[in-house]
């Protein structure tokens, strides 16, 4: 047996934890070596002499239990912190989730915004771009204005597409074209209400006196008709030209139009009316009454 093995057996022998098998092996060696046996027995004595263990003080126990108490408190506070952290985390997560849900719901429920797509195109302009709108003739709604309370408003007259050309010509910048339009209208065998309306507008609004005089002359053959007389009566107050006004008064007086009496009286009472016109009105009214 090697020396190391014997030393290890002696270590077990000294502390008393040697197995029965090893004890028998060691005793065989002791039979051959008495000194080794003595050495082993002395080692066992030394082991036994090392029995005097120290006792810790009560202060150590006190410190330990204080430390244990602190650890218990920390353990509870850690648990509370975990719950608190979880609670705050849940609140934050709930807020974020609510925002996302609101965004998604709002996006899919709101009406889509009107998207105006502008297309830009580069255009080479040689001259200043001036918009000259093409005047498309539209149906004109014309209302016959009452001359006085005695004259009842008549039905609305609509100038249809057949009068469109004449209406455009009556708005021409050239006086000759407007006169020509008046002549063409009056040359028709049967004047419609639309034609009469166009002539009435020309009598009231045309800036040129010659055009208005042409209207008066063109209606002269039809003076016996009441609707023609109405057209002429409507033009009495709007005339700023003495010649036109005289022509109107002469025509109505010659036709002995009783429809024109109220308008003629109004014109007579007007201080701005020319004296010649007033005298002519006076004489005509007296002749009507006689």
């Amino acid at each position, binding site marked *: 047996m090697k020396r*190391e093995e014997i*030393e*290890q057996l*002696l*270590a*077990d022998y*000294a*502390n008393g*934890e040697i197995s029965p098998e090893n004890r028998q092996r060691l005793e065989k060696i002791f039979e051959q070596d008495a000194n080794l046996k003595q*050495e082993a027995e*002395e*080692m066992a*004595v*030394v*082991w036994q*002499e*090392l029995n*005097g*263990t*120290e*006792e*810790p*003080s009560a*202060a*150590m*126990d006190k*410190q*330990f*239990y204080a*430390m*244990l108490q602190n*650890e*218990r408190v920390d*353990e509870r506070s850690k648990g509370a912190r975990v719950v608190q952290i979880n609670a705050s985390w849940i609140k934050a997560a709930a807020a974020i989730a609510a925002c996302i849900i609101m965004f998604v719901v709002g996006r899919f429920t709101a009406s889509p915004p009107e998207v105006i797509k502008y297309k830009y195109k580069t255009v080479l302009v040689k001259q200043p771009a001036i918009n000259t709108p093409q005047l498309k003739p539209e149906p004109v709604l014309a209302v016959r204005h009452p001359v006085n309370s005695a004259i009842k408003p008549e039905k609305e007259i609509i100038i249809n597409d057949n009068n469109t050309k004449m209406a455009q010509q009556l708005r021409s910048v050239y006086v000759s074209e407007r006169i020509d339009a008046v002549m063409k209208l009056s040359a028709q065998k049967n004047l419609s209400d639309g034609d009469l309306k166009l002539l009435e507008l020309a009598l009231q609004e045309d800036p040129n006196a010659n055009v208005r005089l042409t209207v008066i002359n063109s209606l002269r053959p039809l003076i016996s008709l009441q609707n023609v007389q109405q057209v002429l009566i409507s033009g009495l107050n709007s005339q700023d030209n003495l010649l036109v006004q005289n022509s109107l008064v002469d025509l109505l007086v010659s036709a002995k139009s009783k429809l024109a009496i109220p308008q003629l009286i109004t014109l007579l009472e007007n201080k701005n009316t020319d004296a010649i016109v007033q005298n002519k009105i006076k004489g005509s009214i007296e002749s009507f009454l006689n």
Partner: protein
Amino acid sequence: MTDESLMLYVKNGELDKAAILYERYKKQLYNFFVYKNNNDKDKGEDGVQQVFYQMIKYRHTYKEDGNFKVWLYSIAWNIQHHDFRQQVKQEDINDNYLIPETYTQFDDDHQTLHHALKLLPDIYREVLVMSRFGGLKYEEIAEINNCSVGVIKTRAFRAIKSLREVYFKIS
């Protein structure tokens, strides 16, 4: 209840069970630290406190199939060696101020034996303290020191033999 089952309770948060383990091991650990630190009782108590503090702090590292005593003394061994390294540095500083050691006459054999124990090389004294005062088997000490059982037994033999020479020479 075994040490291992008690430690599992501690691991699962029942810190009250640590008190039972403390009562079982406080004396062994105290003597381990006292003899490892030249009979310094303050260091002995401080070492025990540190062992149980770290046992609670690192209780999650305890393995269910592990030997509790080995695990506990591993903590103690690490504390002692960490403290020992700091102590060596301090002793190196104090070497310049050492005075020649005077012979000390002890009143009885017991004191003489314990004085001889202090003079043993650390690796020998450690095995003797752990086995004699800590109640650890050589196999457990080997596991803590991460070496073979034969090495520990050889160290134990040489430690006891050295004490024997001192003890019986004086006698």
